[in-house]
């Protein structure tokens, strides 16, 4: 990294933090801190929702995913507009009518305090751990690639976020997300056009080439229950997943509750629904262009430099590297022949040469991965073997001009900060509104309420940093956090659907249903893990949600309504 890159990186991040603090220095009330004054216009709500969902991994991992597997991942987002429409019709009017601070507050109104406490506690546990990972995930990649100190990187990202989130709360989160999204868009466009500029093929030629290599297959119309990347799985599973995430996760709910009115919040969510698919398509297309670009470069056998170091230690390495280099040269010659082919048959002959070289290249890469897997079996510190997270950063650091590298790193860190700030803000809000004020200090003054909100932001920020710093010690914990989050989503969505659409269902039936359905969902997950059943992870959400509706109705039929009312 050049000096200019450091200046750009620190300049952008410092500007965002200072802007966030300066813009929200007027916040003096708890209402202002927790809701941002409820005066955001639709475009700010939309940007804020998008920035919350787009974490650093979106920008590190997604182009790498496209590099390996093409555009298919975009299907996952196709259900998003439908989910946004359902949220606008069913969820938003109820939240806005009650002027709630948190989604779980609504549940008390329908089902009583225990359900509110249970759902908010589940959110705190799951999101509290996830906030640490939002910081840790980019920090581990950047520290591996750039040699930065991992602990220091975690602490710096965490502290930068805490500074403005503590000062300005919800409004600071939204205001900084506006700047962060601007940096992200500018950075990604520059990266995309830099690839095109440096590539020996024109854009149309690059598209034809990647199409021939199967990288542009965005839509798969075949129905396959066990493949999440086809349009049917995406619509069925994705709709439930997005409804859970955007409708019941406070880190998202809080973003649209800042809307000036129901209309502005709705438009914000629809804006998210409209732009998310093209945005993901564009990021994936950038990854595909990186794939085409790398056809003309001598790429490493493994994109993770630590894995590469390990591979270089093996005896057969130089032989493997020589074979690999030969294949790359053969492939590059075949691509030039494809480009210069005068007729269709010459083109198709050249293309089959490219494809066979590609297969040979993949074989060597797979073998390298097997070697790392073998090494990981006995190693104390495991090496990340899935190198998709390292593809785009390899491109950024090696092929972008000085200054732009700093900007792209700012994109990655901005994305990390935008998600983390929403998470800390939501964690503090839920802690103070649903737990602290509701149960322990109902009569505190506004000043104390505001102070408590700031202290909880600091507490969750500290915990997130601590977890990020310690995350590398617990390999399985990282996986467990991701799993726990997804395991509860379906059940919690079920509670909200019951609250919104089934007035006959009362508190006792709803609470009992959670206690019955959740262990069943966990059991299904376990049976899948031990290969007793075959069930794609995505299906746990619809199953959990639909079971909640059935079980609650069943239980309610045994509880006389009068008893519930007199409760």
């Amino acid at each position, binding site marked *: 990294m050049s000096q200019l890159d450091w200046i750009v990186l620190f300049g952008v991040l410092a500007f965002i933090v200072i802007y966030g603090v300066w813009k929200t220095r007027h916040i003096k009330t708890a209402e202002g801190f927790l809701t941002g004054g409820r005066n955001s216009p639709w475009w700010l709500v939309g940007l804020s929702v998008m920035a919350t969902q787009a974490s650093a991994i979106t920008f590190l991992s997604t182009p790498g995913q496209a590099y390996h597997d093409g*555009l298919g991942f*975009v299907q996952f987002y*196709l259900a998003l*507009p*439908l989910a*946004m*429409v359902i949220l*606008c*019709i069913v969820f938003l009017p109820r939240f806005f009518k009650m002027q709630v601070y948190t989604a779980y507050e609504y549940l008390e109104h329908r089902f009583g305090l225990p359900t509110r406490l249970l759902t908010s506690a589940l959110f705190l546990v799951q999101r509290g751990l996830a906030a640490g990972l939002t910081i840790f995930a980019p920090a581990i990649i950047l520290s591996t690639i750039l040699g930065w100190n991992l602990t220091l990187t975690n602490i710096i990202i965490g502290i930068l976020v805490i500074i403005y989130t503590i000062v300005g709360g919800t409004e600071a989160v939204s205001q900084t997300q506006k700047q962060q999204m601007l940096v992200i868009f500018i950075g990604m466009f520059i990266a995309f056009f830099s690839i095109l500029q440096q590539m020996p093929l024109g854009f149309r030629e690059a*598209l*034809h080439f*990647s*199409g*021939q290599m*199967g990288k*542009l*297959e*965005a*839509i798969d*119309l075949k129905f396959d229950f066990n493949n999440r990347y086809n*349009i049917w799985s995406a619509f069925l599973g994705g709709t439930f997943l997005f409804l859970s995430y955007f409708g019941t996760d406070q880190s998202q709910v809080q973003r649209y509750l800042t809307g000036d009115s129901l209309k502005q919040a*709705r438009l914000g969510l*629809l804006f998210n*629904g*409209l732009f998310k*698919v*093209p945005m993901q*398509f564009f990021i994936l297309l950038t990854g595909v262009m990186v794939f085409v670009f790398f056809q003309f470069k001598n790429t490493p056998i493994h994109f993770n430099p630590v894995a590469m170091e390990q591979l270089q230690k093996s005896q057969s390495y130089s032989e493997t590297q020589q074979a690999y280099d030969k294949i790359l040269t053969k492939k590059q010659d075949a691509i030039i022949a494809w480009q210069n082919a005068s007729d269709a048959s010459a083109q198709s002959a050249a293309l089959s040469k490219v494809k066979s070289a590609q297969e040979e290249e993949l074989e060597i890469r797979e073998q390298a991965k097997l070697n790392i897997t073998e090494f990981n079996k006995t190693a104390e510190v495991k090496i990340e073997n899935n190198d998709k997270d390292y593809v785009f950063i390899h491109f950024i650091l090696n092929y972008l001009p000085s200054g732009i590298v700093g900007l792209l790193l700012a994109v990655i860190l901005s994305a990390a900060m935008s998600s983390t700030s929403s998470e800390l803000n939501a964690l503090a809000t839920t802690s103070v509104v649903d737990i602290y004020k509701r149960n322990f200090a109902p009569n505190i003054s506004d000043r104390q309420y505001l102070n408590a909100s700031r202290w909880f932001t600091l507490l969750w920020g500290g915990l997130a940093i601590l977890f990020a710093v310690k995350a590398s010690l617990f390999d399985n914990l990282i996986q467990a956090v991701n799993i726990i989050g997804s395991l509860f989503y379906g059940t919690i969505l079920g509670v909200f659907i019951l609250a919104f659409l089934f007035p006959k269902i009362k508190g006792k039936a709803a609470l009992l249903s959670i206690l019955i359905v959740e262990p069943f969902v966990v059991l299904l997950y376990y049976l899948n893990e031990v290969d007793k059943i075959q069930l794609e992870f995505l299906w746990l959400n619809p199953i959990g949600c639909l079971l909640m509706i059935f079980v609650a109705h069943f239980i309610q039929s045994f509880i006389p309504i009068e008893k519930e009312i007199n409760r």
Partner: protein
Amino acid sequence: MTKGKQKWNYVYAGLLLLTLGMIIFMIIFQNYYSL
């Protein structure tokens, strides 16, 4: 149905139609460049 509600329904329908448009575009895109 109130006029306001009807307007929103048009907005929702518009968004879903646009999504369908995006799907059709992607199918045409992938087929065009794979040939």
